[in-house]
């Protein structure tokens, strides 16, 4: 039977999705490594899902010191030789996974979007060129353990996996492993005013909104979508929205997953501020508006009609 080892990061809300990857390898043995200075909660969380839980408990793991975690975990990996070592490609994941690969010498695969079994091969997909292309690789499963990071949101936590309550094993943290990173301070960078660059979903509003009062239409859509409000320059110039929300050549550059424009014509100065390959939805009443040259999906019509409808539907989804 295949062995899958999940490295669960303490602050990772998507770590359960990694079970979705493991599901592809069913039937398999699922091991979960958990970290922290007190493991009670995460142990409970994982118990129904795993065959075995490896607990690493140490004061240095109160905040997730990936360097420390990698050094205590790596010897275990070399001993266990799981077929697949999974972790989310969060910021700490970007640190942890390659270091594990470097210490163990196991090959690494980064930012997996999809895994499938095809003609006897395990194939994994990842995005390249900021999402412009999808690149597939064959994974040498069975030949060597593979370290893999998974893009959050690409897999779903399965409902189907049924495990008996997992074995719990508290791992000893070796003494010869002094921490090398000294944590000084936690900083909340989002507290320094709105930073729409950090948001993965943006609702961009343009002059089609006509009036400051009517901004509310777009604002409540953004809220429904859990998105930030972005803007074209004229609205910022009128003082309706903060400058930090202006996307474009003379505003900020953003790199979201979703960019939904409302009454935006799509001038190059505005669209030039969008990086990567977001899914662009455009709402504009002018079928010839240049924004449709950039968008993936367009709706031609009155925003005051379409936007509230869209908002309602999205709110329904959430229920």
């Amino acid at each position, binding site marked *: 039977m295949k062995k899958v080892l999940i490295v669960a990061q303490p602050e990772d809300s998507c770590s359960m999705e990694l079970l979705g990857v493991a599901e592809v390898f069913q039937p398999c043995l699922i091991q979960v490594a958990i970290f922290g200075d007190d493991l009670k909660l995460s142990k409970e969380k994982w118990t129904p899902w795993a065959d075995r839980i490896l607990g690493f408990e140490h004061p240095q793991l109160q905040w997730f010191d990936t360097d420390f975690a990698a050094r205590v975990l790596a010897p275990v990996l070399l001993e266990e030789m799981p077929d697949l070592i999974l972790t989310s490609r969060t910021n700490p994941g970007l640190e942890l996974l390659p270091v594990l690969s470097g210490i163990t010498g196991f090959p690494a695969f980064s930012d997996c979007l999809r895994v499938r079994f095809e003609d006897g091969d395990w194939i994994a997909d990842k995005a390249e060129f900021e999402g412009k292309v999808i690149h597939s690789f064959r994974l040498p499963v069975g030949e060597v353990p593979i370290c893999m990071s998974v893009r959050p949101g690409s897999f779903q936590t399965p409902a189907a996996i049924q495990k008996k309550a997992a074995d719990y094993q508290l791992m000893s943290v070796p003494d010869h492993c002094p921490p090398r990173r000294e944590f000084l301070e936690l900083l909340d960078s989002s507290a320094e005013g709105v930073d729409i660059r950090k948001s993965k979903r943006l609702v961009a509003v343009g002059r089609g909104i006509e009036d400051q009062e009517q901004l509310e239409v777009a604002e409540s859509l953004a809220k429904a979508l859990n998105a930030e409000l972005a803007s074209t*320059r004229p609205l910022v110039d009128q003082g309706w929205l903060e400058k930090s929300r202006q996307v474009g050549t003379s505003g900020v550059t953003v790199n979201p997953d979703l960019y939904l424009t409302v009454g935006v014509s799509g001038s190059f100065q505005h669209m030039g501020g969008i990086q990567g390959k977001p899914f662009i939805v455009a709402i504009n009443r002018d079928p010839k508006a240049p924004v449709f040259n950039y968008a993936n999906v367009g709706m031609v019509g009155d925003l005051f009609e379409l936007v509230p409808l869209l908002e309602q539907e999205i709110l329904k989804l959430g229920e």
Partner: protein
Amino acid sequence: MNHSPSAHPFLGLSGPWLQTILMVLAFGIFSWTLYRRLGLLRRGKRAKRLDRPLHRMAWTWVYGILQIRQFKYPVAGVLHMIIFFGFLLLLLRSCLLMLEAYFGGVSEVGAVYAWMKDAAALAVFLACLFALFRRVFLRPSRYSDRLLPEHHSGEALVILIWILAILGSDAMFEAAGQALLPAEEGASPVAAGLSGYLEGMGQATLLQVRLSSFWLHNVLVLGLLCYLPLGKHFHVLLALPNVFLANQEPKGKLREAAEAGQAFEDLEQVGVGKLFDLNWKDLLDFLTCTHCGRCTDQCPAYATGAPLSPRAFTLQGRKLAYKSQPIWKQTNGNPDFWESGFSRDGLWSCTTCGACEEACPVMIEYVDKFVDMRRFQMEIGEVPEELQKPLQSLERRGNPFGKARLRAHPFLNSEKVPLVSDAVAGESVGDLYFADSAALYEPRANQAAVAFLELAHLAEHPLGSAWSKEVDSGHDARRFGEEGLFQELRDRNQSWLTSLQPNSVVVTDPHGLNALKYDYSQDLPVLHAVELVELWLQEGRLQVSNHQESIQVSFHDPCYLGRRGGIFEPVRRLISSLPKVELVEMERNRSWSFCCGGGSLNLFREELGQQRMAQYRLAMALETGADLLLTACPYCLLNLEDAAKSSNLQSWLGVQDICEFVLSRVSPENTHEKEGVKA
């Protein structure tokens, strides 16, 4: 003799002695200060400013002596002319009074001069009084500068009062003489008048009044001489030389980054980072400035609230120069220019529109200095963040928008404008349309260019294009100081231009016009679209319809078409030849046009003022009550149209390119005819 000071000792010294002591003192101080001040110039870099001496003399006559630039500001201009010419006359008088200390009676040279002198003195007196009044009570905004902490009006006041005192003491001197011994004739009327009030004084008192007035006058005059190099009135001495030495290159031409015979790449140092990296004429500019503030008054960056005032720049430069070479203390080293207080934001705020240079009565130059300073900043990598992307796009893709060549608007590759490929030997490609980046990659600018090409088609004027080979003209890369990039772009364009050898090059972008004329070394006629359209209309090759609504239009002169390119009247002729179209000029038109914010790379910079230049300009257009604002530059079009959008005005003031406008008024017959011919 009439109680000449030459004959009466004063303060225990005989006239000639006293005068000699005063003169030795004064000239001593004056020569030393002058030596220190002008010595600054020797620390600057080289510059050639003595070519074409005859032309320069004529130039100095017009701009230096007749001072025709003064009249753009009529009140100040007239005042200045009165004081200037009056002063010339009075100068003679003052010299005579100096001599009077040696040779009694030389200052009495007859009635005609006396009258003239009095008239001049009176005029100067009144002008000074009025100027004082104006400074103190009317306070034209031009005299304060938000970027200058010190207030310079104080100095102007002192000088005005000083001049009044000179005039007064002279008058007193003469009046007392009259009272002592009334002359039959040759007496100055003012003196004669004043002397009436002195009657009744004893002879001895009168003599004392006369002597002390005389010496006061001489001390004041010599003191003024010593004072001149210390303050803004240095211009009294330097204005004429500065005008004589002014830049005589065409207005749109930039100072070269490397001296002739030197390769830019091999330069040890590029541009201006420290004070004495400037050339001597730049330093002379600093010394000459009159503080008049005309430059700043015209500057669009200053007007919109950006941290740039050309006058403040010059005065900060002057202060720094004086600090590095004080008159009585040791000479210091070569300071970093930023020590002057001039800011980086100020440096990058200049659009190179040239309004300041057009206004300066003493021909002080700005754009060359700024560009040289930017060259230095480029060299050390201190470039505003927003500019990095478009500059890299220029480097990699040949246009600031970062578009791949295949994204160029392929309009040009049509039967209307055939794409000319490499020249066939012996065959001419005729007239060539050089589109430049905006028309190729910016959709709105592209529409305007298409309108022009449509007109060319209707007028049956064949134009070729080499758009697939074109890269950006590099005009603004150069003006932003990226000389290396400019040279690369220029070389790329020149290589195909040389192989194609067109008869002439036609542009719609005035920046391209300026680049091809003055930045490139091709010797080709370069025409702007408006010149051709005007010609076509004149020759009847384009017919405009009479059955149109009447309309009032205003025209925004693009800086590089008008002020720099000198193309003003063709546009006016063009517009006036259109039936039912009335041109209403903005107050700031032709060479006084107000920059829209600048083209190309400027488009990527967020202006630092409270308002954008284009919005400011638009407000001026609105004042005319015109229905439509026309322009003839793709970037002006973009900026002004954007301003209209931002101010929610678009509904009642449209912005159009002049070619689009003409196209909209061309008679349908004209169009049909052509189609008919085709079919």
